[in-house]
């Protein structure tokens, strides 16, 4: 783990963008997430690491209420966005998801053109007033996602015709086109080659200036490279959460240490 470049750890703000207290998730009888407390800071990249099946995706999906779509899932506890409880009855999950965007583990572009993929979010939220403005949003989003140069000549070709890595960057462009405040990314680089991964990581670092980013990753190097904060999950528990440098160099919990040194997982 010596090759890890521990990025400068300056956290731009200490204000908690999202806070979770005592979050429990059950899938039917399966207690998938146990008593998770965490503060996701604004302007920060937070990495979730942990062995497969430990509940990283589950927790991520709690943050924008995507778990609502799983009929057997039950979420207890409290999660707040800017101090407002997102599981309150008066909250419309649709408006929440416009503010807390998501990129999924498997690239899932709409079977429409590249342009329509990116323009979809701004369109349904009425974010742009004119076609020119929409074009602009599409272009900047694609540029931010490091995809513009590859697709600028075929914006109207189907998004599903791109390679896996391009599709994932398209999904990222689609997510940032709605300018969310928090961007949740579930293993966004699992389908990408090293160059595209580097581009996405660079992008994540840039996004930090505008959004809070939460990224689930299986690559410890990636967590170390892009994140300022890291949370380690194990068997449904949030074992340790802290500054990335501290987690990787000086973990407090023996389980964290075993995991990052490759003994569990």
């Amino acid at each position: 783990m010596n090759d890890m470049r521990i990025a400068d750890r300056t956290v731009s703000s200490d204000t908690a963008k999202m806070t979770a207290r005592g979050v429990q998730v059950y899938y039917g009888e399966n207690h998938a997430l146990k008593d998770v407390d965490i503060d996701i800071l604004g302007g920060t990249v937070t990495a979730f690491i942990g062995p497969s099946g430990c509940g990283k995706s589950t927790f991520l999906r709690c943050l924008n209420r995507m778990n609502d779509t799983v009929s057997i899932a039950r979420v207890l506890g409290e999660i707040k966005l800017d101090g407002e409880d997102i599981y309150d009855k008066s909250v419309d999950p649709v408006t929440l998801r416009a503010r807390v965007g998501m990129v999924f583990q498997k690239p899932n572009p709409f079977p429409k053109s590249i342009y329509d993929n990116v323009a979809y979010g701004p369109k349904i939220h009425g974010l742009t007033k004119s076609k020119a403005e929409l074009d602009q949003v599409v272009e900047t989003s694609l540029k931010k996602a490091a995809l513009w140069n590859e697709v600028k000549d075929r914006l109207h070709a189907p998004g599903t015709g791109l390679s896996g890595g391009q599709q994932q960057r398209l999904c990222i462009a689609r997510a940032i086109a709605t300018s969310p405040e928090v961007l949740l990314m579930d293993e966004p680089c699992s389908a990408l080659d090293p160059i595209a991964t580097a581009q996405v990581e660079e992008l994540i670092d840039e996004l930090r200036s505008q959004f809070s980013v939460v990224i689930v990753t299986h690559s410890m190097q990636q967590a170390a490279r892009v994140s300022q904060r890291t949370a380690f999950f194990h068997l449904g528990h949030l074992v340790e959460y802290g500054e990335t440098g501290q987690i990787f160099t000086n973990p407090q919990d023996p389980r964290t240490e075993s995991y990052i040194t490759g003994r569990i997982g």
Partner: protein
Amino acid sequence: MTDATSQTGRSGAQPRKSLHVTDARTRRRNAAEARFRFYGAAAIAVSILALVILLTSVLGNGLGAFRQTFITMPVALDATVLDKSGTGDIEVMKKVTTIGYAKVIEKALATALAEKGIATDGLTAKQISGLLSQEAAANLRNQVLADPALVGQTVDVKLLANGRVDGFFKGRVTMDSAKLDSNISPEQLELALKMREAGLMSLSFNPGFLFGGDASELRPEAAGLGVAILGSAYMMLIVLVLALPIGVAASIYLEEFAPKNKWTDLIEVNISNLAAVPSIVFGILGLAIFINFMGLPQSAPIVGGLVLTLMTLPTIIIATRAALKAVPPSIRDAALGVGASKMQAITHHVLPLAMPGILTGTIIGLAQALGETAPLLLIGMVAFVREFPDAPPEGFFDPASALPVQVYNFTQRADPAFVERASGAIIVLLVFLLLMNAVAILLRRRFERRW
């Protein structure tokens, strides 16, 4: 581990096998595969053979229905007979019945025969006019009433020949059978032959078969499918308008919104069962509910359409749900992830992807409904209907027939000429089914091209 070592040990002990020698196991496996392929090919060959036999028999029997023997001759429309007042007043002219027209035609036929120098010795006037269909006078009357200005002129008209004469030219009736037939005699047939040589009588395309109404048992030559085609079209319209939205809405609700519990399971099982309910049961239901309870008219396309809608709904719902299920959940997640509402996710992304499947299901359902006979018999669609229904929506309540019922109807009649008509009706039905399938394929292509 032990497994792996023992295996390497075994393969090490065995002599190396050549790739060019197949062992018994591989041979058996290949033989099984070849057998299976043969069974498959044989099954397809049998079905193709059956299809070819069916089509040749239907086409062989039925194509004749589209051609009919006509007598073409000049007819002097005598004003003294057809318009006694001489004013051209349509109400007065309507008082002249077909008997008046029959006389005019009889005279015209005699004149035409004389002109061509065809001898009619030994035949009574009744026998000569017997070469014409009994429908001919009615047809001429309609023609004149539609255009009263024709009265007083001599016009060339095309009149239906008698069904037996038509059968003679099509090979159904022979001189021998005519001897035993009270409706036709060999002498009449000989006259018909002479008339054909003289160009008075000929076989030509018969629009009346497609656009005319049904005719009585004694006039097979005049029987047409117009009312049945229109009735079927009305019913399909009703089925489409009702079953498609209801079926798709029900499927979307069940598939995307309904909670998964005992009730929805029960509904699901019942929908599958409904699809398997014999169609005649739907007919009884329609009779009880729509006619006896709601008091809708018998034989009306509205009742037929409603019954067929009930019958088609399960098919559409099952197909639509399968199509919705086949849309990958990741697409829904993607839409929800950018903040689309559930309804937006469905209408913008899921439905377009499911559309080809939905359309296929709908058209299969419609095709089934188009060919359905049993429930229609129960709601009185089997009645003899000559009059065309009005334009919709009033027309939905007028008596009408339906194509499959018309086929059944034709086959029930004694005159062998109706066999040809029945097969002709089947051809029309098949053409409609083919057209619907073609539309399904076209629509599917269109939607698929939008990926």
